[in-house]
């Protein structure tokens, strides 16, 4: 049998290699919150001709509108971000654009979120993540009759959260990708996927513990990892197939949502085998050492 656990520090090192740049980016650049969190206006128009976003920006600035950004969001589609607007004001913007470019822009999307709602969503998101983590911790600890399983599963879960947050901080800085309600949904989904994967490995450890009560914990973990690795890879591959198809061919509105899920799935697959399992061994080793010292 392959002694997987011998290389546990290598696994942690690889994780750190991925997480640290993201963390640095999180601290320096932060995330780009969407209007879901900050409040504001999102206007998307489809023109019949191509226009430079700069021109739209200049026109609106001239008329004393505050514009955060103008982006090209598709062929002849333009996405405007502005502070929260009244609907009459939004109509004025649309008329201004129609007049200036001698075109009939079609309003594809118009979203206004008040600033209080944004703050609320932030709090609700944090509550949801803590709640989900708490419930899962409780459930895993109960099923496996040992808190260490629960804690290690949660640690692997936070690994995936950090990877996703870091990746989106970098994506936000370099490509202007925003973090919105859907991103939060993706994070929560990956949390459950990651635990799903971890539970399968842990289940094998639990089973072998009963079958071979005298074997060392480390060898049991090695056995479980060997037995579940092909399942874990195959399962993740099917999900990754689905997500790649969606990412490349799916609708524009869910592109970054799917990207978040994809990053999370890869991270979740890695973390269940190469974080959650070695963490258990580490935990066991430390507690053994403590026992000896006493």
């Amino acid at each position: 049998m392959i002694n997987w656990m011998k290389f546990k520090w290598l696994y942690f090192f690889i994780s750190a290699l991925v997480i640290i740049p993201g963390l640095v980016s999180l601290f320096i650049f932060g995330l780009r919150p969407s209007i879901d969190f900050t409040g504001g206006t999102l206007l998307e128009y489809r023109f019949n001709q191509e226009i430079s976003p700069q021109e739209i920006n200049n026109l609106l600035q001239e008329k004393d509108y505050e514009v955060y950004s103008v982006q090209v969001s598709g062929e002849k589609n333009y996405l405007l971000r502005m502070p929260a607007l009244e609907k009459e004001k939004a109509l004025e913007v649309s008329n201004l654009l129609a007049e200036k470019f001698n075109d009939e822009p079609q309003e594809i999307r118009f979203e206004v979120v008040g600033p209080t709602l944004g703050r609320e969503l932030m709090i609700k998101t944090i509550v949801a993540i803590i709640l989900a983590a708490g419930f899962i911790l409780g459930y895993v600890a109960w099923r496996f009759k040992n808190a260490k399983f629960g804690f290690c599963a949660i640690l692997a879960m936070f690994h995936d959260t950090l990877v996703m947050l870091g990746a989106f901080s970098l994506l936000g800085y370099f490509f202007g990708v925003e973090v919105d309600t859907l991103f939060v949904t993706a994070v929560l989904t990956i949390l459950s996927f990651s635990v799903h994967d971890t539970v399968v490995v842990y289940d094998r450890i639990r089973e072998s513990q009963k079958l071979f009560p005298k074997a060392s914990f480390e060898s049991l973990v090695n056995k479980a990892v060997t037995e579940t690795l092909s399942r874990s890879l195959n399962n993740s591959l099917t999900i990754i197939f689905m997500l790649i198809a969606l990412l490349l061919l799916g609708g524009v509105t869910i592109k970054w949502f799917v990207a978040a899920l994809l990053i999370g799935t890869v991270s979740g697959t890695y973390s269940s085998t190469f974080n959650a399992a070695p963490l258990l061994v580490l935990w066991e080793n430390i507690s053994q050492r403590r026992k000896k010292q006493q």
Partner: protein
Amino acid sequence: MKRRRFLVWLVIILTLGSLYVDLPSKIHLKFDFSFGKSQLSWLKIDKEITRPPLSWPIGKYRFYRDLEIKKGIDLAGGAHLVFQADMANIVPENRQAAIDSAKDNIEKRVNLFGVTEPVIQTSKVGDDYRLIVELAGVTDINQAIDLIGQTAQLDFRELSQEATQAATFADFQPTGLTGKDLKKSEVKFDPNSGEPQVGLEFNSEGTQKFADITSRNVGKPVAIFLDELPVTAPNVQEPITSGEAVISGNFTLDEAKELSIQLNAGALPVPISLIEQRNIGATLGVESVQKSIQAGLIGLLMVIVFMAAYYGRLGLLADGALVVYGLLTLALYKLIPVTLTLPGIAGFILSIGMAVDANILIFERMKEEFRSGKPRLIAIELAFGRAWDSIRDANICTLITCFILFNPFNWSFLNVSGMVRGFALTLGLGVALSLFTGIVVTRTLIRAFYRKEKIKG
């Protein structure tokens, strides 16, 4: 053995049943086998098959489903509106009642406006009371907002006795005749100018009040106020006892319609203001759906090929179970009915991946049992039993997350966004169903097909 045969039939019946539900409600069959001049009329088929909607009486209620997929606003286009109620003038214990009655009221208005199946929810966050309105397929959203947002408190006012000729609108006093005394309202047209007006018909109490007011104000103006703003103040020519009146205030036809809908639905008990609005044009929705469904099908195909390539005959059986899974899920969406959003489609697609997982877990177990030298049939049965623990624990964790995302009890500390809910619902349903297809259906298929082949071989 009896139970096994029962399961085979159950799977067959469920599959056929969901196939029936899944098909579009109208199918046009057209075949023409006649060649050249030879007229074989009996070979010509040109028929439209229409599936009737489900409609079963259950006690007092009726279970009715038209078996169409309900599309959320991001797919059908439409608006997501959040209004906040101004509760300053309402004592705290009456606030919940006020927001509930505002909700009923808006429901009436929107229905009168002609929007099918609006979704209207109330939510309480801290001390704020809110109404979340989702209108699918509405094109003129601004009109809808006007219609919903106005309190529409109508009241009739008269001048006090001391008022002089120079009286302004501020001098008008309430008479006690309000929108509550209305029986109904409709759009009328001025017989002379043809301008739109709003016709009012009072109930018996209102008729009496109106008669009294007009009697004591002959030759004087009576003003009609809407939401504390004067609309018109005509002079009373003679007492009106018929209980009918018209409001003429330079309305456009749309404005007159709007006002009459608002009056018919009644005034809102609290003023509300718009704090969030999301309009999604229908074009964006249609494009996204087509692309996402296409992507989903390609993804599904990849999964099917992968399973067959990796697990061979067993994989093919799992693919069969996957097809049953797809049919069942779609049927459930139509039966519940689930309002499908783009994240909802993503949730469904993700759940396909998780549905295969149960099979992968079982098959990997089978391989192990085969390797340990157990007879094939016993190994298969053992694998199902052994894989169950991990399948259960893993899926329960996903269901917990779905529960929190869906927030079924409308807990105010969690999100109630329609998008996120759609995702949680489809993923949750998918996981629950995949437990059924991954275990029951696959096992039934394996018992029915795999075993026979082995015996033959």
